[in-house]
């Protein structure tokens, strides 16, 4: 049997950080006293009508622009009918056959559609199960009900759990930088469901998918998909078949339980919402949405690859958050005679390591190291004014206390020992004399043995000597 390939698509719900709800004037709130942000409209009293939130439409258009989607000239709101206490009208106003935006792309993943809808209220089930079945009572908090949501649906373009989680991070970063959502998975302002299936590698048809819900962190998203892929592969390899169903991920146990099967699936009886007219964004709204776009991670990474010739990996690392990217660009701009690529490697390599060692978390931008200081430091290393090793020492000092690299070099006496004046040559000679066995081995062709001699010189010079120069002098004095 051919190896089974994972096929994953994501459905992402983004709560928009508008001032008020999608269809009424109630202010959005998180963590306030329950049922304090409600009105006749969001409680679905008889006779009320929805009025679309213009800010939500503008935010949704920004998301559509960031995802390079086509925006429908007239998209239609539909009613999605179902009974549940968190859904007071017994229908959710959503979009169905003509969504706000279609056919986009983020990174390597195609966007199927993005549409506007309203969030359900929050339910708290009292009792052991934590679910409505078997609970002693259920409480509804309508504060959340009616919060504007953008639902983003990808094409099934992802091929692994880690890849899916990585892409979801890129999406979160993208939406965060638009400033249209808090994108906090724990608080539920970003919710990611996954459609998972497997198929023989190379097959063009899709296998039967299952839908995974309730993965409220990127780690759980990855673990949930991993668990489901393992389950599906086990089933198929044992000659069984995957059944279409919706699965609930339990973060505590890491297990998946069935919420409902295909037979139990709702018939939502979608029909066009007669209380609303088609959503027709004006040219001005579309233009403003495009103009409001900051440079987003995917575009920035692409620019770094093309203009600075960075590797995909380093480009993605630098481009992910705008603060790090800005730090890099300022440092590269401040550096004289140093390629931006070298600065990039320092930011993602030496500086990131030094920051990790110092504090564990936090980026370059909010450290004590200024972009100008880093640029100066990398310049000194490149001009061999200090050794690479000394460069790291200076960097550690900059991370700890800030300041100017030149002053630290001066204070710590780290200036590179120049080969002029004979001081370094004398130490090299001393090294050969101190370890004649190693010297003999090098002479007889064992290149590795030179390490012991270099080490001696570095110890004696406290790392101030340039490794290349030490090597050159050693070989010269050994007559090679």
């Amino acid at each position, binding site marked *: 049997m051919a190896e089974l390939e994972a096929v994953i698509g994501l459905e992402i719900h983004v709560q928009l950080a508008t001032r008020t709800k999608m269809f009424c004037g109630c202010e959005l709130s998180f963590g306030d006293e329950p049922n304090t942000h409600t009105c006749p409209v969001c409680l*679905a*009293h008889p006779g009320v*009508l929805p009025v*679309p939130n213009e800010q939500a439409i503008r935010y949704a258009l920004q998301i559509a622009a960031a995802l390079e989607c086509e925006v429908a000239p007239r998209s239609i709101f539909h*009613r999605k009918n179902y*009974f549940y206490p968190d859904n*007071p009208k017994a*229908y959710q106003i959503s979009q169905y056959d003509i969504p706000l935006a279609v056919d986009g792309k983020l990174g390597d993943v195609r966007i199927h559609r993005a549409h506007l809808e309203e969030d359900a209220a929050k339910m708290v089930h009292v009792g052991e199960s934590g679910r409505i079945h078997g609970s002693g009572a259920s409480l509804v908090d309508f504060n959340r009900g009616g919060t504007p949501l953008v639902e983003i649906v990808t094409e099934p373009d992802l091929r692994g759990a880690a890849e899916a989680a990585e892409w979801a991070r890129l999406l979160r970063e993208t939406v965060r930088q638009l400033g249209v959502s808090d994108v906090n998975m724990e608080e539920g302002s970003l919710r990611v469901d996954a459609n998972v299936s497997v198929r023989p590698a190379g097959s063009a048809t899709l296998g039967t998918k299952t839908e995974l819900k309730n993965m409220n962190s990127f780690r759980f998203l990855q673990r949930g998909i991993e668990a489901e892929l393992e389950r599906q592969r086990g089933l198929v390899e044992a000659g069984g078949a995957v059944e279409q169903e919706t699965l609930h991920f339990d973060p505590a146990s890491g297990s998946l339980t069935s919420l409902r099967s295909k037979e139990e699936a709702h018939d939502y009886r979608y029909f066009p919402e*007669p209380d609303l007219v088609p959503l027709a964004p004006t040219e001005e709204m579309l233009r403003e949405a495009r103009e409001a776009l900051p440079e987003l991670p995917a575009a920035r990474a692409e620019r770094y690859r093309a203009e600075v010739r960075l590797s995909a990996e380093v480009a993605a690392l630098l481009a992910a958050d705008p603060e790090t990217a800005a730090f890099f660009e300022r440092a590269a701009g401040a550096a004289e005679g140093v390629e931006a690529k070298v600065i990039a490697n320092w930011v993602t390599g030496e500086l990131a390591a030094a920051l990790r060692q110092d504090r564990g978390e936090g980026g370059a931008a909010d450290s004590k190291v200024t972009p100008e200081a880093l640029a100066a430091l990398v310049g000194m290393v490149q001009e061999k004014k200090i050794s690479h090793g000394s460069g790291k020492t200076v960097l550690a000092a900059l991370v700890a206390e800030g300041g100017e690299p030149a002053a630290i070099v001066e204070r710590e006496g780290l200036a590179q020992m120049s080969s002029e004046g004979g001081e370094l040559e004398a130490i090299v000679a001393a090294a050969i004399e101190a370890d004649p066995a190693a010297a003999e081995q090098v002479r007889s062709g064992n290149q590795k043995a030179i390490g012991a001699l270099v080490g001696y010189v570095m110890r004696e010079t406290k790392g101030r000597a340039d490794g290349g120069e030490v090597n050159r002098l050693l070989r010269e004095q050994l007559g090679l």
Partner: protein
Amino acid sequence: MSELLELSVAEAAAGIAAREISTGEYFEAWHAAALGDELNAYLWQVEEGNGYEVREGPLKGIPVAVKDIFCTEGSPTTAGSRILEGYLPPYTATAVRRLDAAGARVLGKTNMDEFAMGSSNENSAYGPVLNPWDRKRVPGGSSGGSAAVVAGGLAPCAIGTDTGGSIRQPASLCGIVGLKPTYGAISRYGMIAFASSLDQCGPLTRDVTDAALLLAALQGRDPCDSTSVGIEGGIVAPSRESLEGLRFGVPAELARDEIDAGVREVFEATLTRIEDLGGEIAAVALPSAEHGISAYYVIAPAEASSNLARYDGVRYGMRSESGGDLLEMYETTRAEGFGPEVKRRIMLGTYALSSGYYEAYYGQAQKVRTRIAADFDTAFAGVDFVVTPTSPSVAFGLGEKTDDPLSMYLNDFFTVPMSLAGIPAISIPAGLAEPPGGGARLPVGFQIAAPAFGEQKLLEAAYALEREIGFEARSGSDDG
């Protein structure tokens, strides 16, 4: 005192403006009359006095009876249903607020078919309304209470709602004027929804001038209703006396055998009066109109099935005592709270929207609707108005059609096409006719329909015709 009740609204308003009539005295006269309701036409009446402050405006001091489908803050609002028994809305409908802003005052809330579903008022959970002309007969529906209070001298004017004829048909059966404005002319906010794409508020009055006066106050764009636009240029009191230069189209397709002979006679006599006034009668074709009833009884129940889903016993109104778990609570509350006609239409509508049937029913009905609208467009290219009898019959006996829903639905045959097309139509009393089984003569309504937002022109023509007809009959005046 009683001569105050003889005045039309326009006359009373003029008297009040000229300080010839005291608002307190005028209101008390009507309040006393309303309290003498023997028709079961009121479900609630305002308490006397209670420190009400009279507002300045064109309707200063005018009492208005309001169909119990409009939410009135703090006053019972049931929509004629058991499921809203005891419900006190936390807000007031825009239409009522606009009347209030014009100086009018709510006199009481009128009985109606449950959720406006019916043509006889026999579907009210609070008992049928009796026709003031003959208390063994129905007043029509669903705004039967509003028609009966005006015809029966229990209110000077009223507002109702018309979804497929619910203002025009009871106006016709009670011998008063009933106007259904263009869809979008008056805000639907706070008007309990039956079929959102068809529901429209309108006045029920003694004469055309009063209808214009109320429409002038009611119409206007409302930010709370996205589908409202108002009437450009507003509405003024009609003054036209001739029909010179106006063409009235009679649709051949609506000349059905089911029309009572007496109704046909009055209709034809009215066409002659139009010609006497200089108007021209022409034949028009509305080839799709005869499918109106079929399309209407798919679209209206479909929307109703969704609109009425919010009555679940969770947040307000009735909750069954016998409920167990969530599903049982929903089921028993709705089983006990809704009457048989409402249940029938919810089931019809749910079926029509179901996956697999949507295109065959809802989709097809919408196509018919589009064709009917196109038929009217074509007709209005050649004529100014389309005229029909309002109802195929005069008021029928209580209980006569309750066992035959299809025969009941045919009452709407002449009124439904205008609702589906969203155009304005008025019913004015055109004469009296003997019912098919014999007995005292009863009112017959004449319907005039105009292109969308052609209300002013429609009122002008109706006004001229009303003068010519000189319908002076009042309920009980023809029994000698």
